[in-house]
């Protein structure tokens, strides 16, 4: 023992050792909450800093201004705009990569790149091979994730169709880019390394391929910190309008960045919502443990006060006791959080294709972790410590009054009539301290709530997938065109052997305008009686889009502050670029995105472009899949091909292996909470009743029969906890779903029994596990000594 430790400190250490099992259970609950906090907080900082450093090093553009064809000298005009730091006019186009082993054509984004530029905007990180030559037109840089997915390396060749012409390129090097951190195939919302390629060619090659000699089709710019974004967007749109601008957008709307920022927001939500649950549970656990400790030590408290120790000494003694546990929880949680952070950081690094991602073990989180744990400990111990302080020595040294029981009236009495004596003991103990029983049930319920929340999360994702892939989009293949084509293309697709159904779609990029609120989006024109791609509301009913008006998603209507009957101003960002006034005829709730629907013919009429389609949904005969893919590969003007089945598979993979790994962590944590609460409650029940249990053993009750009195109580509490946990889970998930919902997704709250069943099984297993530990104590009970002692 340490020399400087006072006698009370020695007592404290021995007390801690005596209840080491319970202390460990509480430490783990605190640690679970702290580690989630440290991990999500650290991950947020790490992702944010990595993103910032990555963006800065490779000069990720602040703004994009796509057009159809703008002469190179316009770049000068743009660079003269106030706030603009640097501008480059580049050529960026869609392409299709054909690989011998890949069944379907693969969507690609092809960009011009100046290999001699010292610090180009949207630079690349060359991870393998060498830079492309400024003079050779047959060399490319290839996105590393795509190359890795297909086993491609520098020196290999790649066949790419651009603007309807097939080219063959030599891969000079593999690159990572801040533009493609989240490398999304067009039309999909899940990363798929194998199904999206980004390529960089030198300018000459691009000018030739896209027929843009002396011109560019996308201005990328960086601006100074004091630049006015809105002004710049308006100015760019004005300057590029004659050249077919589709609308400038800032970095915030760049798709890869947008997803990354949302991931950060989700981490932040997770870090905000989860830890308080764990902290609340640990406060409860500390409360029951310290309350019990003070009760058993009444006489000791009286004695040390009689010796002359002050109330303050007594309070400090018990506070030290809980702070020791809190310190353990904070340290284990901090270490665990860093370990988790490193693990998840590696998953993120791979998933987001960062050239580097270092999880920041931030020492400020240690301070916060310590503060949170200490506060939780103090809160948990408050009432017990107060009762210890207010005990007068004389009262403390008298044993507490024996527990009083009553048979209860009416209902309780009737139930008792059916029970054997051990069951009556269970019932009476529970009904004697209903508050405590309910609190314990709440603690177990909190654990179940976490599981329920995670299962509801799974249910919501499944539901969204189901709605996206089986209700809204029932096609096998979606083909998008480089530009709106005549509806004869539909016939062309229809004639492919193996295509059983073709459904055209006309979508157009627009700027919505209402009451000076602007929103860059698109209108989707659907044919009458659409079957492969439908507009549905949240009840999965078809949305009526037969009239001339536009039907807006609720999110979009909210952004635009518009109601049915109002007129909506729509600036079309392609073709003749008309500005249209269209009545809003309906509002639907939508799960994904901020769509606006119109009847396809009505849309084409408004655009004065009859019989145009911008893409088509296909249903194909699975036996002729390969033939269909081959035919599509051969069609010029195809900008992208999206395979629904693979997109579905990708989503599932992401959930199982990618950031979805959170789910598994949360499941483990909910087991920790459930086991921690159950074990502590059981252990205290055991200590309180050790003498009763020993008496039962002496009276001839077997170990199992004796254990029943204790474990039956636990099981009853666990069962009471089930509805509580279900309700808590529903509440937490409702909150989380709202907090996690974004412009991109509306996360639904789906009630499904299997989620509750799964969570119930976890709680009952954790209860059984804790029960097994207690049964072991019951089996080892010392009969002779337990009988000699008074309560």
């Amino acid at each position: 023992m340490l020399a400087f430790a006072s006698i009370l400190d020695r007592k404290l250490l021995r007390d801690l050792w005596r209840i080491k099992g319970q202390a460990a259970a509480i430490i783990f609950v605190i640690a679970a909450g702290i580690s989630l906090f440290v991990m999500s907080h650290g991950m947020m900082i790490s992702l944010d800093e990595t993103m910032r450093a990555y963006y800065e090093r490779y000069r990720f553009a602040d703004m994009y201004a796509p057009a159809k064809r703008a002469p190179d000298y316009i770049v000068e005009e743009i660079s003269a705009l106030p706030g603009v730091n640097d501008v480059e006019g580049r050529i960026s186009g869609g392409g299709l990569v054909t690989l011998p082993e890949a069944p379907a054509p693969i969507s690609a984004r092809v960009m011009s790149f100046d290999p001699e530029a010292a610090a180009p905007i949207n630079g690349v990180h060359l991870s393998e091979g060498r830079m492309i030559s400024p003079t050779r037109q047959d060399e490319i840089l290839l996105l590393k994730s795509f190359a890795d997915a297909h086993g491609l390396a520098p020196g290999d060749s790649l066949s790419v169709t651009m603007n309807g012409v097939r080219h063959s390129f030599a891969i000079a090097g593999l690159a990572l880019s801040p533009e493609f951190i989240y490398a999304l195939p067009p039309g999909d919302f899940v990363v798929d390394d194998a199904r999206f390629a980004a390529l960089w060619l030198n300018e000459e090659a691009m000018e030739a391929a896209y027929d843009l000699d002396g011109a560019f089709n996308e201005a990328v710019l960086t601006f100074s910190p004091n630049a006015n974004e809105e002004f710049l967007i308006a100015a760019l749109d004005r300057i590029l309008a004659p050249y077919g601008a589709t609308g400038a957008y800032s970095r915030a709307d760049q798709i890869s960045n947008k997803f990354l920022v949302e991931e950060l927001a989700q981490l932040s939500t997770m870090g905000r919502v989860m830890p308080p649950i764990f902290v609340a549970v640990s406060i409860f656990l500390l409360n029951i443990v310290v309350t019990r400790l003070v009760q058993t030590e009444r006489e000791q408290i009286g004695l040390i006060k009689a010796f002359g120790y002050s109330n303050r000494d007594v309070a400090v003694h018990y506070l030290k006791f809980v702070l020791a546990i809190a310190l353990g929880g904070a340290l284990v949680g901090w270490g665990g959080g860093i370990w988790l952070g490193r693990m998840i950081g590696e998953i993120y690094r791979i998933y987001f294709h960062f050239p580097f991602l270092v999880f920041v073990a931030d020492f400020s989180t240690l301070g916060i972790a310590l503060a949170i744990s200490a506060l939780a400990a103090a809160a948990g111990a408050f009432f017990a410590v107060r009762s210890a302080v207010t005990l007068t020595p004389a009262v403390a040294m008298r044993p507490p009054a024996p527990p009083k029981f009553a048979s209860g009236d009416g209902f309780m009495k009737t139930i008792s009539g059916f029970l054997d004596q051990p069951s009556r003991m269970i019932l009476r103990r529970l009904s004697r301290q209903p508050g405590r029983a309910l609190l314990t049930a709440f603690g177990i319920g909190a654990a179940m709530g976490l599981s329920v929340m995670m299962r509801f999360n799974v249910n919501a994702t499944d539901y969204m997938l189901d709605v996206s892939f089986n209700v809204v989009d029932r096609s096998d293949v979606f083909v998008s065109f480089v530009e709106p084509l005549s509806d004869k293309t539909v016939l062309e697709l229809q004639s492919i052997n193996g295509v059983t159904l073709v459904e055209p779609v006309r979508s157009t990029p627009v700027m919505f305008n209402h009451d000076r609120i602007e929103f860059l989006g698109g209108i989707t024109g659907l044919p009458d009686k659409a079957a492969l791609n439908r507009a549905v509301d949240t009840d999965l009913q078809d949305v009526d889009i037969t009239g001339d008006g536009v039907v807006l998603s609720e999110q979009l209507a909210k952004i635009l502050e518009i109601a049915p009957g109002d007129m909506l101003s729509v600036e079309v960002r392609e073709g003749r670029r008309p500005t249209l006034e269209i009545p809003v005829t309906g509002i639907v709730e939508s799960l994904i995105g901020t769509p606006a629907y119109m009847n396809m013919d009505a849309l084409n009429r408004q655009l004065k472009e009859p019989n145009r389609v911008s893409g088509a949904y296909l249903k194909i005969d699975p036996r002729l899949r390969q033939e269909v893919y081959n035919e599509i590969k051969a069609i010029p003007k195809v900008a992208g091909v999206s395979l629904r089945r693979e997109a579905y598979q990708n989503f599932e993979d992401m959930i199982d292996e990618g950031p979805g790994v959170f789910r598994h962590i949360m499941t483990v944590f909910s087991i920790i909470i459930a086991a921690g609460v159950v074990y502590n409650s059981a252990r205290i029940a055991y200590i309180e009743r050790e003498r009763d249990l020993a008496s039962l053993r002496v009276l001839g009750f077997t170990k199992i029969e004796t254990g029943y009195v204790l474990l039956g109580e636990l099981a009853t509490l666990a069962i009471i906890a089930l509805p509580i946990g279900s309700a808590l889970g529903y509440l937490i998930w409702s909150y989380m779903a709202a907090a996690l919902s974004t412009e991109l997704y509306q996360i639904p709250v789906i009630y499904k029994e299997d989620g509750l069943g799964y969570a119930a099984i976890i709680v009952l297993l954790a209860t059984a596990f804790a029960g097994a530990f207690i049964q072991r104590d019951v089996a080892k009970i010392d009969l002779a000594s337990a009988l000699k002692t008074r309560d």
Partner: protein
Amino acid sequence: MSESAVQTAPGKLAFRTSDLSKVYGEGPAAVHALRGVDLEIPSGELVVLLGPSGSGKSTLLNILGGIDRASSGQAYFQDDELTAMTDRRLTAYRRRHVGFVFQFYNLMPSLTAHENVDLVAEIATDPMPTMEALDLVGLTPRATHFPSELSGGEQQRVAIARAIAKNPTVLFCDEPTGALDSKTGVGVLKALQEVNTRLGTTTLIITHAAATAAMADRVIHFADGQIREVIENDHKVSPDEISW
């Protein structure tokens, strides 16, 4: 009272021990609670064990009652060797044959007097009616009361009723009057004697109160882990005449 209540014929031995020893702890800290005890207790007797604290009487009672194990030597209940029994068989032995009465009563606080007796009756093979057991200790009017509503003497009489309700072969009482005043204690002793004479239950009573010896068939004096003296009492007196 049914005939089956009397489970042992007079003259037969209820317990026999040979060289029975019990050591707690090891090495220099070892405590020899029993040092080679040889003892015979005939069936149906009321035996009082006397001796100072730590003399080994409780240890002997615990080993005979099947709640503690000897370090060496043998102890027999009738013809069964207790010292060779497994935990499971010891539990069965307690369940079937043994009634216990403790110094601190050890009633279940959440059960009424009647239910405390029922608790044992439910697991017994041939229990007497619960009300009969309570009647025997004079507690019929208090049957529906919880332990917290009973006096110490009443609680101890419930404990006796609980112990005898299973019609035990032997009844062990460790300081049954230790927590009671003299007058209340006499009531408890009367109940024990009543059980012994009416049911023929072999009864072992540990006590600090030497006067209690006057009501015993046999008095065993303990000292330092050994039997100092065994006295057969030819002139038993009624508990009413005892005071301490």
